[in-house]
């Protein structure tokens, strides 16, 4: 219910998407938790399991959203993908493996059609290796996470120091 509280349009929301009990699928959530620990004021963080219709609701009302998710594609484990999703649709690897076939990519495309997409939506994908049941990240993913955390942290700092107009 806290979501329905009025938000300042300058607030940036960082969403970590995934399932901590599906091995590397938990990477998005792990990244967001580590970013939160580094403490940047004025930025909201949330965790989400990736159900698309609800994700549209979560993003609603924010001018800027960063979304972090593990992806399954042919690229090498630990590879980082950055997409300006307010400008272009997400590649297919973001839509696989989601409950009821309505996941992150579908939520973003639906929000685009509904005219409810944040003005700035940056999606960070981390190529995973193992999506089986389990609570541990693969070594390759564990190693890539600090790199991704640093990359997002820098963008967040830029947002803080130069304001939204700089992004």
């Amino acid at each position, binding site marked *: 219910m806290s979501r329905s509280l009025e938000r300042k349009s300058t607030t940036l929301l960082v969403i970590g998407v995934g399932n901590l009990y599906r091995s590397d699928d938990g990477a998005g959530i792990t990244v967001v938790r580590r970013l939160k620990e580094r403490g940047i004021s004025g930025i909201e963080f949330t965790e989400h399991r990736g159900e698309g219709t609800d994700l549209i609701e979560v993003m609603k009302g924010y001018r800027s959203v960063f979304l972090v998710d593990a992806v399954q594609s042919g690229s090498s484990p630990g590879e980082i993908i950055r997409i300006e999703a307010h400008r272009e649709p997400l590649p297919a690897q973001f839509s696989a493996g989601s*409950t009821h076939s*309505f996941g992150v990519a579908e939520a973003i*495309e*639906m929000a685009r059609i*509904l005219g409810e997409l944040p003005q700035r939506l940056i999606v960070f994908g981390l190529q995973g290796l193992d999506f089986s049941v389990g609570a541990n990240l693969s070594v390759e993913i564990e190693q890539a996470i600090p790199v991704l955390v640093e990359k997002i942290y820098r963008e967040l700092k830029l947002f803080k120091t130069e304001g939204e107009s700089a992004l």
Partner: protein
Amino acid sequence: MTEKKINVDYMSRVEGEGALRIHFKDDQVSEVQLNIFEPPRFFEAFLHGRSYDDVVDITARICGICPVAYQMSATHALEKALGITPPPGIRSLRRLFYCGEWIESHALHVYMLHAPDYLGYESAISMAGNPELLPVVKRALRMKKAGNDLMVVIGGREIHPVSACVGGFYAAPSQKALKALLPELEWGLNAAIDTVQWAATLEYPDFEVDYEFVSLSHPDEYPFNEGSILSSTGLDVPMEEFDQHYVEHQVAHSNALHARRVDSGSTYMVGPQARFNLNFERLSPTVRDLSDEIGLELPVRNPFHSLIIRSLEMVNAFEEAVQLIESYEQPRQSRAEIPQPLQAGEGCHATEAPRGLLFHRYRVDENGLITFARIVPPTSQNQPRIEADLWQYAPGVIQLPLEEATLRCEQLVRCYDPCISCATHFLKLDIVHD
């Protein structure tokens, strides 16, 4: 001899991972397999040795779409095993909780998963791209959110809610928090009525099956949490006897069990269509009038009409949610005291999940640890029925271009809103590889 095959390697717009294979020889169906390859999840096995009060939260994890159903069947079954009676007010709150889940689940299925089949779209996203259908999609998302919000207020969060426990709820919502939902639920009631009228305008394949329908049935209310097991064949037994009459079997081609009748080995249908046909008189007058107005004839034997029935059930759920909130008083005690020392015991219970009857049975020892667990979800009961439907339906569509025939068969599978994640929760695994 000509051979044809319909192969869908990865079913879309269903929950979980499954494939569909239909083989034809000379336009006669020679094989139908709904192949559920989502890995088995062993929930019953890892409940062994866990405390009884872990079960409600663990089984909720079986499904992200119907966690309330798992929580409700588990709490009732364990309360029977341990001899616990929930305090006054909890029964109504549980019904209200279930209303939220039905609304959320049915809104998702009717509009986002099933409607694209009838309107000729690949997905709800492409549907929304049509300016005429955009308001319909917006209505769907808003209705679903109304269900989500109800689950958040009662359950703490909409997915895998955390408030339900053996004996009641860890905390009951305040009257104020629930009343705040009324305007949106009243809007939702009207939106659900509009949904029924819209659903009645869609074109449905002409296909009827002589099903055995099975659902809970209660003398005074549309079934959620209580009732006896009623079948359209006349069987009417206490829910404690469910697993004497219906039993699950393993089949080689699927990671989900198949349930059949014990005496005849025949298939049966659970879910909205079964509930509706068996309990029509317990629906609200609004729903019955609407059903008459759109000309639905009982019993509904066309599985494609399940889309209309889900819409009617949404009207019932929104209406009941409004009524329950209007008369709600926060219970003084949100959960029963658990009697100490614990008594060892066995209990079972069935409730009506959005997709149909969900049966749980548990044995608990004197330390409160689980020594036996059985969970029979709706999709494992419907799976052999889905295959039987396809045997009957596929010959009528095989003359169509293959792509069209495939879509028609998928559309039929989606009538059951199969929840593959639920169906693969089971214990044993035996796959035959060629």
